């Protein structure tokens, strides 16, 4: 049985931990609101961009002249995976979930005998994959010094990817990030960005509008597709930021509750031991008096 002093110390330390987790929860909640707003504001842009590209591809008559970004290089050899994670921990399963999904994909790619290249954005993700996959990582970035990630940051990552693509360094490119569904659920997602995903059947049924293209389709696509890459990355950033805060908030909420339970248990223990000590002393006094 631990002594009274030890129990007292433990209760105190759990209580101060609880204070920290509670504060972190509040901060995450405040940040979440902003991140969520940003994510929602960013959605129209990427959705509409997708829509335009869809309309363009529907209008393309000749597939052979289409830019490679849309149709792919024709090969299926080298995969580039972009892993987007947070720079900070203490956010529940946020980073682990993305890494789990990514690792599964990585192994699959390697098992199929294909080449793997990884760009890691965010330091926590790199920490988790470096043991197994560090030799495949060709580039790593983090945003520890930047408070708000802007479109420019996404564009920079996009530029790296495009440059690699132009030098024929890879055939397919995937993005790994957490999709923000709501505060409690975030779904890790793998999205193919190069070549641009095939059009799903539902949108194919839509009525085709005859567009006037100026200049012609190819040239617009050539201008638009690189932009789309940056847009998709930016969208992933925003989704990730919202997910991170949401995940942190729930994790810290749980931690605060657990700490509360623990304090309760320890207090009962403490009171019991204190009572036991008092009773013991009383018995000693009484039996001492009786023996006189």
């Amino acid at each position, binding site marked *: 049985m631990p002594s009274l002093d030890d129990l007292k110390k433990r209760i105190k330390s759990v209580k101060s931990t609880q204070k920290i987790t509670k504060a972190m929860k509040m901060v995450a909640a405040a940040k979440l609101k902003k991140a969520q707003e940003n994510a929602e504001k960013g959605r*129209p842009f990427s959705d509409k961009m997708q*829509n335009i590209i869809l309309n363009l591809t529907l209008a393309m008559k000749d597939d052979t002249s289409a830019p490679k970004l849309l149709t792919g290089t024709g090969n299926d050899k080298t995969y580039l995976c972009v892993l987007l994670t947070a720079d900070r921990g203490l956010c529940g399963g946020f980073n682990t979930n993305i890494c789990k999904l990514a690792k599964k994909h990585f192994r699959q790619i390697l098992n199929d005998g294909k080449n793997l290249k990884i760009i890691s954005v965010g330091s926590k993700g790199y920490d988790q994959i470096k043991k197994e996959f560090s030799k495949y990582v060709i580039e790593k970035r983090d945003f520890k010094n930047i408070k708000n990630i802007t479109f420019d940051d996404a564009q920079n990552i996009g530029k790296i990817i495009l440059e690699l693509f132009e030098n024929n360094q890879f055939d397919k490119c995937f993005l790994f990030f957490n999709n923000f569904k709501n505060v409690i659920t975030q779904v890790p997602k793998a999205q193919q960005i190069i070549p641009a995903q095939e059009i799903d059947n539902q949108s194919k049924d839509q009525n085709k*509008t005859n*567009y*006037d293209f*100026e200049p012609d389709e190819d040239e617009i696509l050539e*201008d638009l597709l690189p932009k789309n890459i940056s847009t998709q990355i930016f969208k992933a950033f925003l989704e990730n930021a919202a997910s991170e805060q949401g995940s942190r908030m729930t994790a810290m909420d749980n931690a605060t509750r657990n700490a509360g339970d623990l304090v309760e248990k320890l207090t009962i223990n403490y009171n019991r031991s204190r009572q036991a000590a008092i009773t013991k002393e009383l018995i000693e006094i009484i039996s001492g008096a009786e023996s006189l």
Partner: protein
Amino acid sequence: MAENFKFELVKPDQFVFSSEVSSVKIPCYEGEMTILRDHISLITFLRPGIVEIDKQGNLEKYYIEEGTVEFNNNNLLVLTSTAEKLVELDKNKINQILADTEKKLNDDQISDKEKYFLTYKASTLKQLS
């Protein structure tokens, strides 16, 4: 009014402008273009320049560096990464971007297309300052 159509100017992180307008002038890749109601469906992209929005007589101007345009069913959509309201753009910033642009223009490494873009950027900025 029957003469109006919907115009949306969207940046990656926000809606810059979204309202009914009577006409919009956009600096297209192949020349300036004014869009009115019932324009033919169109997809094109922009060079640096000024977007002029006529909102029932009120003129609003935005400086943009690039963008993509879609017009369909009397909905005009402009996607751009840079859109600054002209009245909010201050002189120092304009001069700074202009200096940067001119520096880039003097670089021999750039492609013709880039040069084309940068020339327009410089001339638009000169107009503003």
